[in-house]
């Protein structure tokens, strides 16, 4: 597999364009702007979004799927998936889009899978809903998909219930379910944070292989700087709802923004033991940066 | 006092003191917490009307002698019997010529007594059974819960009837009878709440610090159980008032000439078609107070849900 210049093809082959996306939640104590004027494009590449809790990284991912809840309000100058305008889609339009063109993998498969339906049937049902296939076709597709996520005995796993599978297996099942309708974009929100480190690598590798071979765009949302910089092509760094920095993932260690640099410095490193870890000094000016 | 500037309330005002994000004493922290809960509760108009009804009941019971003439509640003026509403008797008179308004006002004292006494018995008994069952588990749990099951299996009104019949009719016996049948759900509730917090890390931390079982139950678990128990009690009050009225209606509760609302409905039923007010007015009083407790309970539940 050749790693062709992702940035070039990414530009000419844009899947998703987001311009000045804002998400506002109205609550008892007034409005909270969780995402402020976020702009980016996504090609057939792996885009990482990193930030700390409350930075708006997850909300950004959810806004692309129209999932901000009753009290949330999405505003954008432009939000476009291929030739579909997401900014003015409405709930009904989003419902048709989810799963079919944009799919999402969340942190814990335990909460994303239906506990009373076998995992195979859940995958098959997804196939039937989006592709209006027959039961038999859906079953065959589900088994193929289980094999594609490297489950060696798909027939057996097909009949298992979510509580019978391990976290890593559950996440493989989730990936199979999310990719069965062949979406254009996969959004993975902390997909491996609940998994053990040795399993993490496997799940990420499976996701990586499938996304590449199908020519999809992937958005990986994570708090883990190492993970994002080693897995993705490009990285957006978010702070207080804003994108403070965009850079090539491999060059994250050379990041310019003081926030990104502060985060990197604050990470303990194996083989570089410091008596004190430099603590992040937050600068109010970062908030005003893009306002 | 170092208070951060709070937008909204005037600095230095009581409100600012209560809402301070950095309370300076235990007292301020506790009052602030109550005040915040009150602010949430106040937003619910139905709950506020429930609170108003219950508050009115209490005020009526406390100030009964100022509102109505105590004598006319029991004074039989036979030539004035079954009078319709008038200036002299706003709710009319009953079959013995007693003023129904005065009887309803003084009857609130009996209702309130029953409500308070049942609450005072039921909550401690429920906690005493439910907390150890949930906390210790195992054999303790099995024994205590089977006892609870036995009490749950008795039909409430029938057991109350049997008790009142055996001990003799009267308000104290009615209270005991109701309390005996009302505590099992509280024991179950306390046990369920204890089970959810039993494995919490703050309980382990307390254990690690050397806290005794008694201390852990009293200082860590009770504060978590109490809100749901009190909400449950408020919601149950309507049922308790109705049971008390039912016992009164059957002649097994408060005895004549005490102006108990259920007994009043009972005595008015013979003249219901011609002199409707005799039974309807105390019936309305029962209805309104039950409704008030229910609305208050719902409001408390919503307020505690919003906080957690």
């Amino acid at each position, binding site marked *: 597999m050749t790693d062709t210049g992702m940035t070039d093809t990414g530009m000419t082959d844009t899947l998703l364009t987001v311009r000045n996306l804002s998400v506002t939640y109205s609550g008892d104590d007034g409005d909270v702007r969780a995402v402020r004027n976020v702009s980016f494009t996504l090609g057939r590449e792996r885009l990482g979004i990193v930030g700390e809790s409350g930075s708006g990284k997850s909300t950004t991912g959810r806004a692309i799927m129209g999932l901000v809840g009753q009290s949330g309000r999405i505003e954008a100058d432009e939000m476009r998936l291929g030739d579909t305008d997401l900014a003015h889609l409405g709930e009904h339009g989003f419902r048709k889009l989810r799963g079919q063109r944009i799919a999402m993998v969340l942190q814990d498969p335990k909460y994303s899978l239906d506990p009373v339906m076998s995992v195979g049937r859940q995958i098959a049902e997804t196939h039937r809903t989006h592709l209006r296939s027959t039961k038999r076709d859906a079953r065959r597709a589900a088994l193929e998909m289980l094999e594609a996520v490297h489950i*060696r005995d798909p027939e057996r796993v097909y009949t*298992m219930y979510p509580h019978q599978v391990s976290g890593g297996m559950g996440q*493989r099942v989730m990936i199979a379910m999310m990719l069965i309708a062949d979406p254009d974009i996969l959004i993975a929100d902390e997909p491996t944070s609940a998994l053990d480190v040795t399993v993490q690598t496997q799940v990420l590798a499976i996701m990586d292989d499938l996304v590449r071979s199908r020519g999809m765009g992937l958005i990986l949302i994570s708090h883990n700087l190492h993970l994002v910089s080693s897995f993705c092509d490009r990285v957006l760094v978010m702070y207080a709802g804003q994108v403070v920095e965009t850079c090539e993932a491999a060059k994250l260690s050379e990041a310019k923004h003081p926030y990104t640099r502060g985060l990197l410095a*604050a990470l303990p490193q194996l083989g570089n033991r410091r008596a004190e870890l430099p603590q992040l000094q937050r600068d109010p000016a970062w908030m005003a940066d893009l306002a | 006092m170092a208070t951060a500037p709070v937008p909204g309330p005037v600095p230095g005002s009581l409100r600012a003191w209560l809402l301070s*994000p950095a*309370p300076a004493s235990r007292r301020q922290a506790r009052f602030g917490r109550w005040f915040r809960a009150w602010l949430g509760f106040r937003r619910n108009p139905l709950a506020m009307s429930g609170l108003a009804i219950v508050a009115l009941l209490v005020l009526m019971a406390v100030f009964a002698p100022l509102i109505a003439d105590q004598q006319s509640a029991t004074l039989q003026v036979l030539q004035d019997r079954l009078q319709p509403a008038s200036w002299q008797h706003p709710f009319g008179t009953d079959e013995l010529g007693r003023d129904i308004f005065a009887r309803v006002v003084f009857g609130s004292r009996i209702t309130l007594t029953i409500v308070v006494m049942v609450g005072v018995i039921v909550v401690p008994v429920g906690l005493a059974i439910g907390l150890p069952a949930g906390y210790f588990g195992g054999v303790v749990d099995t024994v205590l819960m089977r006892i609870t099951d036995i009490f749950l299996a008795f039909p409430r009104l029938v057991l109350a009837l049997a008790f009142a019949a055996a001990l003799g009719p009267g308000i104290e016996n009615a209270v005991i009878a109701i309390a005996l049948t009302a505590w099992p759900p509280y024991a179950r509730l306390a046990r369920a709440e204890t089970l959810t917090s039993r494995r919490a890390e703050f309980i*382990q*931390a307390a254990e*690690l610090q*050397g806290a005794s079982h008694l201390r852990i139950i009293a200082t860590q678990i009770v504060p978590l159980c109490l809100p749901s128990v009190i909400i449950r009690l408020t919601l149950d009050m309507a049922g308790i008032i109705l049971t008390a009225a039912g016992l009164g209606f059957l002649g097994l509760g408060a005895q004549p000439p005490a102006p108990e609302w259920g007994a009043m409905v009972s005595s008015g039923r013979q003249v219901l078609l011609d002199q409707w007010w005799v039974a309807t007015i105390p019936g309305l009083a029962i209805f309104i107070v039950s409704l008030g407790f229910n609305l208050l309970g719902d409001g408390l539940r919503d307020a505690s849900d919003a906080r957690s």
Partner: protein
Amino acid sequence: MIALDDVTIAYGSGPRAVVAVRDFTLAVPEGEAVGLVGESGSGKSTVLRAVAGLIPYAGGEVTLAGRRVDRRRTTAERKMVQMVFQDPYGSLHPNQTVDQTLAMPVAIHRLDNGEARIAQVLAEVGLGREHRYRYPHQLSGGQRQRVAIARALILEPRILLLDEPTSALDVSVQAEILNLLSRLRRDHGLTMLMVSHDLAVIAHLCERIGVMSRGQLLEITTATAMANNQVTHDYTRQLLRSNAGFDRSSVSSGELDVVVG
């Protein structure tokens, strides 16, 4: 200071008992910090809980400061060992202020100068006077963890057990808490036993690192050896590899296959 000899810990009893930790042996001299890494279910937290006296152990011996202990502890033994839990949201009572949380240990152990102790320990963990009468929901995650540390510290323990103390926190807050822990260790000469799934965090605070898997201690090595890849077990190598980030070439396609056991 801490010695575990052939400790076996099982959940449940009789034929249905599940052995969580088998024949675990480890010694931590006074003032040293030792870390245990491993996956969830490896038994690392179970070891910590047995040392803390929160769960009983089925076999072997636990010795603290030269005295053999079991699950039942005297008040003095309790005072000597304190623990900081993973989840700062779950380890503080939701209805109690910081002040109440800190006043309880003072009351249990009948310590003198309670007021002064609470004020001092709060200052020591970097919390101001304005935090003293707040409820947990009025504090950030990092502040809550500071309260949890203060609660452990107020008893002046000699041993501090740390169960993933920073894994629920953001990177920037993690750095602050790790710095605080190193400073407290130095100032009080604390002996520490720490559990984490994050190698870098363990290596930052501990001199020696034990690797656990499936209830057994695979190897014990130093942070320096780890950093230089001088490890003996394949499993440890795997941990090191994942710690370095994602590397697609590190896994062959065959390694991705799973079979349901």
